[in-house]
């Protein structure tokens, strides 16, 4: 149900594409994210691209970490 892997799209033709991660290549279907481009990072589940991975927002999680750091420290001292 939930096992989905970050991979990179290296070739597209029609609704089919080749995704690669750690040197392993897999043919996938891109119907669920049809505007995907080669070079983009995507989430693959059961042979389908189910979403793009947005590296920009990934940095946002760094802020969460910083927030946790600050908050937790405050929390600990409180």
């Amino acid at each position, binding site marked *: 149900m939930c096992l989905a892997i970050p991979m990179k799209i290296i070739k597209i033709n029609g609704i089919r594409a080749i995704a690669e991660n750690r040197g*392993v290549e897999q043919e996938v279907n891109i119907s669920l994210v049809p505007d995907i481009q080669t070079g983009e990072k995507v989430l693959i589940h059961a042979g389908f691209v189910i979403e793009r991975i947005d590296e920009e927002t990934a940095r946002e999680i760094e802020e969460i970490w910083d927030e946790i750091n600050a908050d937790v420290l405050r929390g600990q001292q409180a």
Partner: protein
Amino acid sequence: MTRKILSGHGSGGKLMNDMIETLIKGTLGPDSIQLDDSALLTIGAETIAFTTDTFTITPLFFPGGDIGSLAVNGTVNDLAVMGAEPMYLSCGVIIEEGLDMEVFEKILKSMKAAADRAGVKIVTGDTKVVQKGNADKIFINTSGVGRITGRVQRAPVREGDKILISGCIGDHGIAVMAERNSLTFTKGLQSDCMALNSMIAHVTEAYPGSIRFMRDPTRGGVASVLNEIVKGQPFSAKLYENDCPLREEVKGVCEILGIDPLYAANEGKVVMIVSAEDAEGIRDRMRETPEGKDAAIIGEITGEYPGKAYMETPVGGERILPLLLDEQLPRIC
């Protein structure tokens, strides 16, 4: 439902071990059956190691090997890990009628090349042909005998000993699974199928007294071997995930199919339990050989969870490595 033999009974997991322990060993002779990679037999003044193994792999040919080289190397390794010098092999084949003669020839050539490389001779054998559908192309059984050279004096495993692997984990099992699930590679992933007798000899020459235990982690993988070592013992086997050598491609396939490389078959690796003071020396000695160039110390024997194998994860947590019931299958959850 009468009890049936299931695919899991041949998987290297708990289902198989329980059947061997109770039904097979119980029936054929609890005092005569030796449950080890090879049986050690004394004939006159000589002690010899004797083993047998059957190979039913599909596909017959896979990147890095085939059923023929697998059969020879697997049997050579089962002798070598007992500290024996492999010498003679048998080769019994069961062929499904209709197999191309050319395929059979190719397999035999591969067996001959593997035997020459390992320095052993195939001296006897048997050939049977069964009706179409009663076998999957070809099955090969190889038995082997080797001389115990007395170089390796086994000592009991104890706390503080180190766990060592002779190279990257899971290559064979994961290469075959990738092939079966039509995953391809940018560079490639090969089975590690190879004979280990010369590497093991190179190590035991220098460190005869510091090797407590050796086994080639085939079906069931490294985790199953560790479970066999600690079963019913007062000590436990602890791995450090960060120290386990894994090829990127193996990690990639495991992530896609949802399987764990520690339970995948290896056909050209040996797990050793060695004394702490000689662990680095043995690892470096292994690295001097092509078969052992990626050797690594991956863990130690502790007393924390008696009878269990477990692992420290990159985040500093821990997880138990249970003996699986049967083989791993691609999963989505």
